[in-house]
């Protein structure tokens, strides 16, 4: 039976030969019989054939029957053998339940984590966006080469581009806040996009219900239409298809619902409603205010390169035409998928790599475990061999063990993956893009199956190979000393495991160190107990006086709310409006004007009195704004330290002035009255840039973010809403936030990825420790006699302990060296892929090396102590 393992069935030719031989035997016997009865040899043969009947037909029928019979028998044997092997494997495992649990658990964790992480990475990075031919869609930016940043385009630039581009169809969206008044008169704030003509066509989205805007609806006076986002439609209108044609009240005027978008429209993320954008004449010329979200779709016959080349040419021409502010502006196209997910790509790729390493470590570990078992069972296997079990049979038994293990682990791994994805979705940072695309789908199942198959091969084939290597005469040899082969493979496996785990630890450690370093940075303002509330009042208060009046009354009401220590308002607060949308160029009074387009720029924030106090921004020199800084009086500003240092190095900036272009193109003089500390506007990791503040009373603004510094946690959103409602009941707060949660949000993705990396590294080092423990246990049990002799010859138990533990720590040491070496080699790549991984950090390396060796020592201690407890007499007797 054993010899038939590889090719146990007969070929067609063999079957035919056997049938021929059988029939020939019959004819020969019958002819001989007839000859004995007196026939001549020729006649006897002829008579035998005649008696037989149709020889050819019989041959065919017999061959066909034999072929079928063989196939059936083959199956039956295979099933019986498999059943036998499975039950043998089960019996074997039942004898070592701990090893079984460890093996299945290890593999299941590896496989499950791999599938889970893949489904996350796949959803965020790899799945196509829900737009028609989404690869053709580009995010359109302007690159400001002097500032070195990608800016959102300005309305003026957008219009110029749209007119001139032929290889790219572009459309823009402007973020906007609106107030919805329902039938009961209740107000609620909605986030809106004012979109230009063809926006949804460029994205490649068809309304789920209703229609897109018509070209004539982008003209003043005819623009009272609205398209609902999917979530808004479900949440506020109950998913009713009859909503089309209905009139709703937005900012106090009636709008007709014309369409509903399908779900999953993520760019730009999370808007409640969409309205047609109607440009006013002033906005058409606005080239310095950068707040448009622009998307483009490649023309049918254009490539991305062609479109980018044309775009660069057009922006070049516009830079000459409008040197202010376009001198340094170059058009830039970013594939939409990259624009949405590019920020997290490095981290997610690292996660995928980390989980891949964990899977490899798990496989290596279990393969090592199986080989260790095989080595323990060498005697048993050798006896089986001697008793006539085919070598092939033993090989197959080992393979079946590995496969059974892998299949079980895959099933458990599937459950783990489901749990992991659920937990990950629950814990995932809200700013992780495309959360809705994450699910355990067919692709993840394929990855899981692939990993499981790979595991089965590694865990089945390696030990099977080891089993096949047992020499025939093993059973009659000494029981010990023969295990060198398995032992040395085991050593290699353990070193590999430790090396992989260490490189993972190094990556996680570097991430962690960078994270700590980052959060150590001073932001320049306090986030503690700062509550923000944003309102949009452009439509309600049109004159400067009305706007300022509203803001002042609201601040008075807010300051009167119990528990409020300080209240202020600004056009944009740190963290809440990431990316400056207003940083116009300026001239310095008393200095020669630079070439057009070479003027310095600065971030401008419009603030109320008490703003610096409310945010905890320190005053460095001069005074903050006061009640005298109003329209009609001298225009004043407070500048940040960086601006002061760059513009007036070594001089006192107080009393000096800058000039900016006013609305009527004349120069406006802005005098510096104070200097405040710099701020990292976008959170940790942001560089302080030149910035100055202007008083709200001199530059009224209609999108206002109030900030309240609360004395305790008692100040609620409801209290703030009520305070604003006391000023004007028709105004709804569009967003409530706290600076703390905004800050946490900026770190959330990093924290998430750091947590995952640390978790995977921990699992890997744990698995490596288990592998080391298993290997040393094997070594000790194989060398029991030798240990006995050493003890008998007077070796101290301490010596023995050092010998065994030293071996474990030595192997781990080799792994540490290889792992850190690998990490150093990979560091350059890691640094490009993952933000925050910086130069080689000796402290991290040393800590990880020492930690790993300690873990290795702990893993070695058990077997070493066991070796020390060996009773020399009994081991020698056994020999």
């Amino acid at each position, binding site marked *: 039976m054993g010899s038939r393992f590889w090719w146990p069935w007969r070929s067609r030719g063999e079957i035919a030969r056997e049938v021929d031989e*059988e029939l020939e*035997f019959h004819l020969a016997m019958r002819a001989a019989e007839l000859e004995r009865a007196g026939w001549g040899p020729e006649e006897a043969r002829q008579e035998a054939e005649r*008696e037989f009947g149709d020889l050819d037909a019989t041959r065919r029928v017999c061959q066909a029957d*034999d072929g079928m019979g063989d196939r059936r028998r083959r199956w039956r044997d295979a099933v019986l053998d498999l059943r036998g092997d499975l039950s043998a494997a089960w019996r074997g495992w039942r004898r070592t339940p701990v090893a079984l649990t460890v093996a299945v658990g290890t593999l299941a964790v590896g496989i499950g984590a791999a599938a889970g992480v893949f489904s996350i990475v796949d959803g965020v990075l790899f799945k196509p966006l829900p737009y028609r031919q989404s690869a053709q869609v580009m995010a359109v930016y302007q690159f400001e080469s002097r500032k070195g940043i990608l800016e959102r385009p300005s309305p003026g630039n957008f219009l110029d581009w749209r007119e001139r581009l032929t290889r790219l169809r572009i459309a823009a969206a402007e973020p906007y806040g609106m107030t919805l008044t329902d039938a009961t008169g209740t107000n609620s704030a909605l986030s809106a996009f004012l979109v230009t003509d063809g926006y949804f066509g460029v994205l490649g989205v068809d309304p789920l219900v209703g229609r897109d805007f018509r070209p004539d609806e982008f003209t003043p006076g005819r623009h009272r239409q609205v398209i609902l986002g999917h979530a808004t439609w479900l949440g506020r209108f109950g998913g009713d298809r009859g909503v089309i044609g209905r009139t709703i009240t937005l900012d106090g005027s009636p709008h007709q619902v014309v369409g509903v978008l399908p779900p999953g429209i993520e760019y730009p993320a999370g808007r409640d409603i969409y309205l047609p954008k109607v440009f006013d004449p002033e906005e058409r010329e606005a080239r310095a205010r950068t707040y448009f979200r622009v998307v483009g779709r490649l023309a049918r016959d254009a490539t991305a390169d062609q479109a980018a080349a044309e775009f660069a040419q057009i922006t070049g021409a516009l830079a000459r035409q409008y040197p202010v502010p376009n001198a340094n502006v170059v058009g830039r196209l970013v594939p939409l998928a990259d624009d949405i997910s590019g920020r997290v790509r490095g981290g997610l790729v690292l996660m995928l790599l980390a989980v891949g390493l964990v899977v490899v470590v798990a496989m290596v570990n279990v393969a090592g475990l199986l080989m260790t078992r095989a080595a323990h069972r060498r005697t048993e296997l050798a006896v089986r061999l001697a008793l006539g079990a085919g070598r092939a049979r033993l090989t197959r038994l080992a393979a079946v063990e590995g496969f059974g293990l892998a299949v079980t682990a895959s099933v458990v791994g599937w459950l783990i993956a489901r749990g992991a994805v659920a937990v990950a979705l629950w814990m995932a940072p809200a700013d992780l893009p495309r959360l809705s695309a994450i699910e355990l789908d067919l692709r993840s199942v394929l990855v899981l199956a692939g990993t499981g198959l790979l595991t089965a091969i590694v865990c089945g084939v390696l030990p099977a190979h080891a089993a096949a290597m047992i020499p025939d005469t093993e059973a009659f040899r000494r029981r010990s000393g023969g295990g060198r082969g398995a032992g040395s493979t085991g050593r290699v496996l353990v070193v590999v495991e430790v090396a992989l785990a260490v490189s993972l630890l190094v990556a996680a450690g570097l991430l962690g160190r960078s994270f700590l370093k980052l959060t150590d940075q001073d932001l320049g303002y306090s986030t503690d107990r700062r509550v923000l509330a944003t309102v949009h009042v452009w439509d309600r208060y049109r004159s400067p006086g009305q706007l300022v009046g509203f803001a002042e009354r609201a601040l008075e009401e807010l300051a009167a709310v119990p528990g409020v220590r300080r209240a202020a308002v600004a056009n944009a607060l740190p963290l809440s409006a990431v990316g400056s949308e207003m940083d116009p160029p300026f001239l310095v009074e008393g200095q020669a004007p630079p070439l057009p387009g070479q003027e310095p720029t600065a971030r401008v924030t419009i603030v109320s009195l008490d703003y610096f106090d409310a945010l905890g921004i320190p005053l460095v020199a001069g005074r903050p704004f006061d009640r005298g800084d109003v329209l009609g009086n001298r225009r004043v500003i407070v500048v940040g330290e960086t601006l002061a240092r760059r513009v007036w190095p070594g001089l006192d900036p107080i009393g000096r002035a800058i000039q900016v272009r006013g609305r009527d193109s004349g120069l406006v003089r802005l005098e510096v009255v104070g200097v405040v500390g710099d701020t990292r506007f976008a959170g940790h990791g942001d560089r302080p840039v030149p910035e100055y503040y202007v008083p709200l009373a001199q530059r009224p603004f209609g999108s206002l973010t109030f900030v309240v510094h609360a004395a305790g946690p008692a100040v609620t959103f409801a209290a703030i809403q009520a305070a604003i409602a006391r000023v004007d009941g028709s105004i709804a707060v569009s967003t409530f936030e706290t600076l703390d949660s905004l800050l946490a949000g900026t770190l959330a993705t990093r924290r998430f990825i750091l947590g995952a990396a640390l978790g995977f590294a921990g699992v890997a080092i744990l698995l490596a420790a288990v592998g080391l423990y298993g290997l040393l246990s094997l070594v000790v049990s194989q060398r029991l006699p030798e240990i006995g002799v050493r003890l008998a010859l007077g070796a101290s138990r301490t010596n023995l302990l050092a010998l065994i533990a030293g071996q474990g720590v030595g192997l781990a040491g080799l792994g540490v060296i290889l792992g850190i070496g690998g990490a150093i080699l990979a560091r350059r790549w890691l640094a490009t892929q993952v933000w925050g991984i910086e130069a080689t950090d000796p402290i991290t390396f040393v800590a990880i090396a020492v930690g790993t060796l300690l873990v290795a020592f702990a893993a070695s201690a058990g077997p070493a102590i066991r070796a020390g407890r060996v009773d020399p007499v009994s081991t020698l007797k056994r020999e």
Partner: protein
Amino acid sequence: MPDSSLELVQGTVDVLILKATSWGPLHGFGISRWIRERTEGALGLQDAALYQALHRLERKGWLESDWGPSENNRRAKYYTLTSTGRAALRERTGNLRRYVAAVFEVLDARTAAG
């Protein structure tokens, strides 16, 4: 088809083969000779049909075959009755007996009347 011998009732060959092998392993020629001698050729069983039946029964698992030396020391294929084959033989024999008995019942009755 040859001579005047009796047409074999469907399935009879199978029963004969099973019966022939019920005393021990036999090769095809041995089975053929056994049936011929027992029936003195009355059934006129063709060897072609016999061999086709042998291979069919082997496929059904009623017979097993193995190669072994024949009485004159040639390599011959021996058929052995399996346990399922033995059970089938019992059942078929019973069926055949009842069948034949029923047929004779009818035939005898008509004879008596005529």
